């Protein structure tokens, strides 16, 4: 049981700015003129298209079939006509594009037939497949497929529901918890059963008293024993590993998952989507999005997946001096390079930015090694050291100092008095390292290919030589049975032109060898020359006395002998493998 709270190192307290958008209840965003539904909702979850241009689709109809282990299904967010299937830019810092189904809504919102899924009578696998086919992914931002995260169904002690929402400005989870607490807990209960966890804990930052109250009330009404815990508002308390640390004391290192340590963490929005999928059979076709920042009408809207950002923004009435739109929070989000990109399952917040709200950073100054960044880093890194290594392009050292443990939370940049954009340096260093690894992998591949080709060629030669030898042996054996020896040898040579070639090569090589003279014999004294002549004479005598080759009498020894004698010039017959 969770008794006390733990601390994670560092963390910061930026202005929360939650009041701007937390007040009004969630509204439904109007249907846009067009919905652009990506078939790929995250770097991992992919789907293959099931519809054609011109096809009529119903709300909730499956338009993308899950592909691969991490794939999840994609659905039509409303009824209408598929007008296009094409690549379209995504909400990504680089404006990458991906295959999308463009749907023109008919405005009737005609649903597919959908019915609750009785997960009590179904097997676990069936339940997970149901979630996958309902397109359930994590709504906290990473959009990891939930059915994968539910894992083996054993070994998890604690299920944590993440309602921390620690980024400034964002209030979508806050509103969801205030308004739909019972549904969230119902979803969480399903998750808990599917994951086989004993304990269910909801962590909410203590700057959301209404959400805490609503969730506590729902927890009291729930028969399953849920703990709602207020955690200190300290960014990044909502980071999965930080929240797990605060609630359980367990530290999950880089590269490891909560599941490895008996805890698993789901966002409250995900739990809500799971509830809709199981209790109503509804696929995930909408999410809550916070619209806030430099606007007159901040709030939260329930938005269909695929709604273009530019259709959504006017709902909040951005002020004229808005100069950018941020997707996500100001700590880890990014400025959208364009506004015709669709809302996807991981898009939680749009912030209209103005120079007044988000002033440009003051000029960068030299690092004074004040260690403020290290004090703030929740990963307990020494960011100024990483910065130093990154700057001097000493990436190996940066990796040694655990660059990849950096969660890019931005705490270090936030506190740096020298206004050094530390996170940018780390992102750059990471991408450089990745690029190098890729290059290296490519080089390795090329080398492997080359080596394999060499190996194959040599193997083929060896096989040929072996065949040749076998054949020669066969022929000789045949001939030895009847015919006289001399013509037989001739016949064998005639029969086997390759053998003749080898013999010729062998002869050439021998000739070459004979021609080769020691290199350092040019300017020798007469005595030395005489000495050498003596040695040569002795060797000649010896060579003449010995038989040319001891093995020459055995019929099938020709090829190997040629190989070992003249590996350089004869078509190599030596299998190197």
């Amino acid at each position, binding site marked *: 049981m969770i008794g006390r709270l733990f601390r994670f190192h560092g963390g910061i307290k930026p202005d929360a700015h939650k009041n701007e958008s937390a007040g009004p209840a969630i509204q439904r965003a109007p249907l846009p003129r067009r919905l652009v539904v990506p078939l790929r909702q995250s770097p991992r979850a992919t789907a293959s298209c099931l519809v054609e241009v011109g096809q009529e689709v119903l709300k909730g109809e499956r338009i993308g079939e899950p592909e691969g282990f991490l794939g999840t299904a994609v659905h039509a967010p409303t009824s209408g006509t598929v007008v296009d299937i094409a690549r379209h830019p995504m909400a990504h810092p680089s404006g990458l594009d991906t295959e999308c189904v463009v749907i023109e809504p008919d405005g009737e919102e005609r649903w597919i037939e959908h019915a609750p899924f009785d997960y009590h009578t179904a097997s676990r696998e069936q339940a997970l497949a149901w979630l996958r086919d309902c397109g359930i992914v994590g709504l906290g931002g990473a959009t990891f497929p939930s059915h994968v995260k539910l894992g083996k169904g054993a070994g998890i002690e604690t299920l944590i529901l993440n309602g921390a929402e620690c980024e400034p400005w964002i209030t979508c989870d806050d509103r969801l918890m205030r308004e739909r607490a019972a549904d969230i807990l119902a979803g969480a209960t399903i998750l808990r059963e599917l994951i086989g966890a004993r304990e269910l804990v909801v962590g909410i930052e203590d700057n959301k008293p209404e959400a805490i109250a609503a969730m506590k009330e729902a927890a009291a009404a729930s028969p399953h024993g849920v703990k709602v815990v207020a955690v200190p508002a300290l960014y990044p308390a909502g980071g999965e590993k930080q929240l797990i640390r605060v609630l359980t004391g367990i530290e999950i290192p880089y590269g490891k998952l909560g599941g490895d340590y008996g805890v698993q963490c789901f966002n409250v929005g995900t739990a809500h989507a799971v509830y809709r999928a199981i209790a109503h059979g509804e696929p995930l076709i909408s999410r809550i999005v916070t619209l806030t920042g430099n606007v007159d009408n901040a709030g939260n809207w329930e938005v269909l997946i695929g709604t273009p950002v530019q259709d959504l923004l006017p709902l909040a009435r951005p002020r004229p001096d808005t100069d950018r739109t941020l997707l996500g929070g*100001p700590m880890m989000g990014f400025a959208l390079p364009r506004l015709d990109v669709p809302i996807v399952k991981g898009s939680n917040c749009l912030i209209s930015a103005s120079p007044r709200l988000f002033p440009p950073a003051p000029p960068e*100054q*030299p690092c004074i090694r004040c260690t403020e960044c290290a004090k703030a880093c929740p990963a307990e890194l020494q960011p100024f050291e990483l910065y130093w290594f990154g700057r001097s392009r000493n990436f190996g050292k940066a990796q040694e100092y*655990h660059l990849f443990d950096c969660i890019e939370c931005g705490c270090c940049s936030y*506190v740096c008095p020298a206004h050094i954009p530390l996170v*940018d340096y780390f992102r750059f260093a990471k991408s450089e390292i990745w690029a190098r690894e890729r290059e290296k992998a490519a080089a390795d591949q090329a080398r492997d290919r080359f080596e394999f080709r060499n190996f194959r060629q040599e193997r083929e030669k060896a096989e040929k030589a072996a065949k040749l030898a076998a054949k020669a042996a066969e022929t000789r054996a045949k001939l030895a049975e009847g015919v006289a020896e001399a013509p037989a040898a001739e016949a064998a040579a005639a029969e086997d032109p390759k053998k003749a070639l080898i013999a010729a090569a062998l002869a050439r090589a021998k000739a070459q060898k004979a021609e080769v003279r020691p290199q350092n014999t040019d300017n020798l004294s007469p005595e030395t020359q005489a000495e050498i002549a003596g040695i040569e004479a002795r060797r000649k005598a010896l060579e003449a006395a010995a038989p040319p080759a001891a093995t020459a009498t055995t019929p099938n020894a020709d090829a190997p002998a040629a190989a070992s004698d003249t590996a350089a010039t004869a078509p190599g017959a030596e299998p190197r493998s």
Partner: protein
Amino acid sequence: MIHSPYVRKAVSVQRTMGLVLIALLPGIAAYVWQAGPAILVNLALATVAAVLAEALVMSLRKRPIGLAVADLSAVLTAWLVALSLPAIAPWWLTTCAVLVAILAVKHLYGGLGQNPFNPAMVAYCTMIVAFPALMSQWPALDGLGFADQLALILGGTRELDAITAATALDSLRTGLRAAGATVEAVSQGPAFGMLGSRGWEWVAAGYALGGLFLLARGIITWHMPVAFIAALGGLAGVFWLIDPAHYGSPLFHLASGGAMLAAFFIVTDPVSGATTPRGKLLFAAGVGLIVWLIRNFGAYPDGIAFGVLLMNICVPLLDMKTQPRVFGHREAAGGDK
């Protein structure tokens, strides 16, 4: 800001340096109260020299002058130099010291943030090696008016012996060399006050007050002051308990010379000091140890500058060997192999 985070804490190097300057004010006030306003003249001189030197280097390096001067780091260095030198050091001595600190130590190594050695302490060492006599003349508290002090600073009278006095640290060290002398006997001398040098206890208290302010504002962490005070006070305490006749008390050591200035303002210099929590403890403790050794057995009156510089040399090693454990990892971070 093209990339996140799009928000930043309202902090800057200028603000950090400014807070340190503010934290020095109580100590300076006590200084003026005890020793007269002459120190203000030297502080002003040092400031002007530092700012001019900084601006000169920046213009030579074709960098924005305003930004570098405005970060106040040069001013802070100047103040620390001036406060380390005797209050009646002649103007050229102060100026030379500041120029050494800014030109050689700071900028020859690449400017702010790059210097492996504490600029003020290098300046102090250079001066005490070059001008040992001038550097050990501190104003006697009585009988030397502001006009006299000013005259000394501006290079007038040179009859130093009549108007200056050795500090308590000095008198104790030299006094104890006489056969049969004890701490008790020596400290009857005019240089001694309640704890350390007469009057200087107040200055030390002023520095300590400023240091607490820095701690409260999070500009410095507790590690360095605590480790320094613990090492110097602890060592002094052990020997004082063993042989109180020949070793000064811990309080005497902490209240004398530059101990408090060092504890809160000098060993805590972030640029040239250790950066990890354990590294900071070792660094400051090392300085404390060296200070005590030099004060008791060395040839110089106060060992702070040498202690700091010696430990500066160890910083890369200290940092490397004391990397803290990273979140979720059992063992410490890289380098420690």
